[in-house]
């Protein structure tokens, strides 16, 4: 068992760090440290292309598809340096980390050739069409339908909570292709162009005032039949393959962002004297311990193998980080007191910590609520009997 990285890996770290620092100090200084997901989309698209030009857009992908075939450790290092340099959240997170690996694993050679290069080059931004008004935690209750019309699928229905759809070019959609099916049966996985008449995107305003999520309406939207990943009716399997990538490498980079947030809380506590209060010292220490344990938990998870088997550390990771960050938001506001509730009258958004307080309420909901996570831990991890289900 080892904590440190090898000399070669550290050399790779320096290489990434110096390139990223150069970019963030130079041409892309205007998007350095953007804490939200929606500001300056055009500049962030330019940033995606810049990453691609230097083969940093998808380093974990095979070299043949524009990646570097990077090892897990190298991906960890890049994610850490990316966050440390203050580079903005990836606009094409869904394409690079979710759809790309899924196509690499399950896509046809035509699909790979058609869709992977644009993701690698940063020219096609993707979003994910899963949740629906009636299919949240119960994702398999999807009602969006696709019916065959000659060489095309025609899609009717509605998706919701679609992150960054307003900036995306393409969407991967889970839709029901077989009439009369329920649950996981009869679903298919379709790749759909967002720029067409049958699609309408409406942003949803969130509790922090921003609009990262959207409703996406499908009213006769079309995609060619060859845009189905996996076989007809096997969409659920395809989508769960994809979900397992969600617990991937990006979490280590995310922790660097958490580090920045905790440091901001520490700075505030030192500034207003709460850092000398024994009660706050205990809470700050708990936050520090929680963040460190997140890091070593993630490293254990990665050591568990590529793809991340549903072992203990992987199964508990989502609820661990989401709960930690929500508690940090609460601690931040307790440290700041009333000063945390205000911003200059002309401020566009909220400062880092107020935004953390608000945004972190979503962390324990999206990607599987804490309640769903507990069911998964109990049922898949501990082998406890499933909750009896209704007939809906």
């Amino acid at each position: 068992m080892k904590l440190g990285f090898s000399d070669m890996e550290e050399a790779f770290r320096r290489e990434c760090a110096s390139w990223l620092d150069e970019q963030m100090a130079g041409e892309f200084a205007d998007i350095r440290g953007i804490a939200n997901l929606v500001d300056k989309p055009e500049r962030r698209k330019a940033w995606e292309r810049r990453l691609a030009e230097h083969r940093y857009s998808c380093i974990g992908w095979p070299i043949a598809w524009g990646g570097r075939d990077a090892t897990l450790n190298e991906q960890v290092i890049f994610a850490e340096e990316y966050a440390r340099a203050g580079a903005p959240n990836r606009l094409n997170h869904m394409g690079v980390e979710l759809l790309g690996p899924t196509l690499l694993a399950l896509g046809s050679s035509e699909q790979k050739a058609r869709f992977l290069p644009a993701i690698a080059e940063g020219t096609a931004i993707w979003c994910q069409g899963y949740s629906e008004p009636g299919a949240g935690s119960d994702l398999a209750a999807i009602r969006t339908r696709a019916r065959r019309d000659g060489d095309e699928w025609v899609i009717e229905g509605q998706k919701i909570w679609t992150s960054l759809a307003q900036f995306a070019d393409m969407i991967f959609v889970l839709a029901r292709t077989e009439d009369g099916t329920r649950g996981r049966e009869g679903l298919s996985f379709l790749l759909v162009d967002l720029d067409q008449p049958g699609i309408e995107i409406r942003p949803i305003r969130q509790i922090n005032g921003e609009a990262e999520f959207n409703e996406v309406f499908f009213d006769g939207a079309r995609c060619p039949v060859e845009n189905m990943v996996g076989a007809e009716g096997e969409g659920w399997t395809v989508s769960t393959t994809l979900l397992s990538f969600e617990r991937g490498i990006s979490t280590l980079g995310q922790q660097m962002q958490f580090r920045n947030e905790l440091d901001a809380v520490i700075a505030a506590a030192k500034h207003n004297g709460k850092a000398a209060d024994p009660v706050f010292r205990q809470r700050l220490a708990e936050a520090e311990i929680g963040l460190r344990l997140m890091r070593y938990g993630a490293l254990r998870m990665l050591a568990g193998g590529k793809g991340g088997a549903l072992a203990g550390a992987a199964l508990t990771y989502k609820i661990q980080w989401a709960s930690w960050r929500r508690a940090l938001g609460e601690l931040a506001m307790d440290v700041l007191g009333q000063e945390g509730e205000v911003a200059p009258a002309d401020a566009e958004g909220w400062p880092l910590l107020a935004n953390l307080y608000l945004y972190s309420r979503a962390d324990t909901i999206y990607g599987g609520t804490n309640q769903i996570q507990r069911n998964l831990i109990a049922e898949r991890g501990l082998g406890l009997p499933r909750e009896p289900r209704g007939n809906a």
Partner: protein
Amino acid sequence: MAFALDEQQQMIAETAAAFFAENAGGERTRAAMASGIDRDLWRAYCRELGFGGLTVPEDLGGAGLGHVELAVVAEQAGRTLAAIPLLGHAMATAALLASDDRAAIDAHLPAMMAGDRSVAAGERGGEGLLVPHAAQCDLLLLLGEGGAHLIDASAATVEPLKSLDETRPLARVHASAGDPLPGGAAPCEAARAAGVLCLAAEALGGAQEALDRTVAFAKEREQFGRPVGSFQAYKHRLANRTVEIEQARSAVWWAACALDEGHETRALALHAAKSFCADTYLRVAGDMIQLHGGIGFTWEHDAHLFFKRARAIANMLGDGPHHRERVARIMLDDAA
């Protein structure tokens, strides 16, 4: 970097698990409660298993292994509530090695490694120091401002006490300070590090076992016509404890690795591991009673043994608030 047990560490974990499963736990633990120690188990651990010199360098006749291996073994001992003086042994071994005092090493280490001489260790606070296993052991390792003192138990006044944790009873020790082990603060620091790691690992093992037994019960016990483990109120509680245990495991591995590699986060890791693992054990053991219902409150059931061990661990070598305050000092970079 691979933050996972390597092949040899995995083998040691399996060997220790098999040894304690066969020789400790259940009736063995209860039988040892009368005297407060399982001497046969300790001798077998040192001699048959050959782990008496686990962390002793090979040129001194040991296995030459590190803190990761110590943690892995202590976890298994904690799982079975083994009534052995592993804590004092690990602490005294670390203190002796750090002192580099050949005479003391020659005088004590071979007998300790063979299981012929046992050590109880405690930290000097005010008057009337409480030391686990002091009334059962041959030597006392007393840590304090003046350094680490390794003395003959017969040279001290040792008053055995009725103790909550009967598998590791406390005794009140009065001893006059003689000469400490040489090496300045090093023996004390090494002993404290080994002790804290040992307790954190024991807590991890105890918590894991308490959880596993409760999960097994949840699958068998039926109420309202279905297993109680199918109710969300029940499974969410167990899921929360699972999340904590996974973090506790990360904490123990981090601390063990940091010690072996002399990593800059070494002190932080130890404070984190002790506070987090002890808290986790307390919660899991408390839930073990609650989720078993009435049977969990009986003397006959083992739940109270875990519950009491967890409490004892929480108080030893600094409680949760103490270690979190130490973390606060490191992270807030002041000397408050």
